[in-house]
């Protein structure tokens, strides 16, 4: 087995062992069934929820909201990053604010957003956006800082127009850092939206999890939690593979 395969095998073994351990602890009633149900029951409950079509609307709502928050935060974060990078004075003023951005508990503003926009998906998109944008701004600034000066010089020697230089030299050179921004923005969009749904909303996966919790419906609650976990893991896995492929090429592997 190659070293890489061994690492992947170890990773999978750890996850499988944890699930098996949980299954055994639950089956042996060491963990009370009122607290946690065995993973196998979560999976079968989830299967039923999906096939019955009961959570279809929730899935559609949550993923549409997350997707909108993600796309908007990446666009806004990238644009702001480029603009701030071009204005060093503005940047000096904003730097401490960006650095302390994530110490703000944004969810305290959530009720205000509902008052402003009403009980629909807009406050959720806004909270996801507010939560994720700064990560993209910081990643963009970081990426642009690290474009070697010799590359921008080369773009000028090759007589590229400023727009073309940005598209064909600056952006590809900054790509690894921008990719980190994408990954963070996605994670923050998920957190913002699902947590928002959890607090107050009329639908979505977060809402359904909270609803099941309030009604002592452990099966549905854990099934939905498992669903969210699996989806987030898959999406992150895909991004990870894409990122590794890009980095491997640049590292000459």
């Amino acid at each position, binding site marked *: 087995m190659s070293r890489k395969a061994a690492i992947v095998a170890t990773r999978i073994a750890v996850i499988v062992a944890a699930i098996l351990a949980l299954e055994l602890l639950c089956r042996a009633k060491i963990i009370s069934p009122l607290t946690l149900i065995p993973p196998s029951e979560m999976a079968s409950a989830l299967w039923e929820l999906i096939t019955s079509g009961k959570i279809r609307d929730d899935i559609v709502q949550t993923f549409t909201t997350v997707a909108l928050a993600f796309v908007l935060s990446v666009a806004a974060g990238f644009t702001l990053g480029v603009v701030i990078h071009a204005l060093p004075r503005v940047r000096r003023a904003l730097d401490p604010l960006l650095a302390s951005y994530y110490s703000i508990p944004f969810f305290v503003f959530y009720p205000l957003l509902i008052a402003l926009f009403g009980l629909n998906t807009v406050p959720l998109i806004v909270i996801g956006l507010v939560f994720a944008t700064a990560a993209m701004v910081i990643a963009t600034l970081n990426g642009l800082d690290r474009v070697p000066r010799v*590359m921008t*010089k080369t773009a000028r020697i*090759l007589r590229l127009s400023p727009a073309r230089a940005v598209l064909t030299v600056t952006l590809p050179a900054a790509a690894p850092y921008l990719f980190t921004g994408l990954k963070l923005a996605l994670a923050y969009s998920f957190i913002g939206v699902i947590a928002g749904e959890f607090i107050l909303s009329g639908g979505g996966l977060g809402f359904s999890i909270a609803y099941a919790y309030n009604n002592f419906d452990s099966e549905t609650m854990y099934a939905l939690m498992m669903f969210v976990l699996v989806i987030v893991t898959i999406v992150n896995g895909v991004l990870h593979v894409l990122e590794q492929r*890009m980095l491997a090429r640049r590292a000459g592997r």
Partner: protein
Amino acid sequence: MNVAVAQVGGRESAPQAAAHARLRGVTRVFGGKLPVHALGPLDLDLARGEFFSVVGPSGCGKSTLMDLIAGLNPPTEGSITFEDRAVAGEVPDGIGAVFQEDASFPWLTVRDNIAFGLRRSGVDAAETRRRVDYVIGFMGLKDFTNAYPAQLSGGMRQRVCIARTLVLQPRLILLDEPFGALDQQTRLLMGDELLRLWRETGATVMLITHALDEAAMLSDRVGVMSSRPGRFIETITTGWPRERDSNIVADTAFGAVTARLWSLLRGESLKAIGAKDAR
């Protein structure tokens, strides 16, 4: 080797009738709270097709000079012309440049790196292919066309950068310590390559280097710069034949040229590092 006796110590040779690039009274001052007078005033005539090197102590403004000629920065005072047209803070057509730092694009293969400038200059696909293939062969990169820069050594990456410049068929090639990061043996061999491409392309070459032997070996003329603000204190004509290579280091005249360069530079270098009893 049959080498004409080097005209060591000669003042700047008589200006050529049609200078390829011409600098008159050029200075460069970097602004800010404490302005730094980096360069000049200086005059320079690069003859069409000559190999001109610039040596000087660290921080004397060699790279600044190159940026000015390339049109990357405007001079504070004075005028620069390339092929009788003013260079004014914009890179003119026909100038190529290679820098000391690795400027190969890590996200592109060797072939795509080399074709990069051509694809963006409106040259059609067939012509691009032909020119890229030629340059790949010329620079000895045939076995690496589909490799990414990270898979290559520093010397090979620098070849890619030179190839990317050559494929655009520049008439003036500016080289800012392109081999500065390479080991001595590789430098000598790259020097041979440089002479070969200079002969074949007929381009004018201006090489900035801190290696005196490199300047002495490669150049028709070597401009020696003073410490900051850099001016030309002397221009030495080597008198080498056009057909030459690194074997010239065995020639007695080579030693004389190198020694002359060092005797001119020693005092300036001492000044540059802040020694009190310079000279």
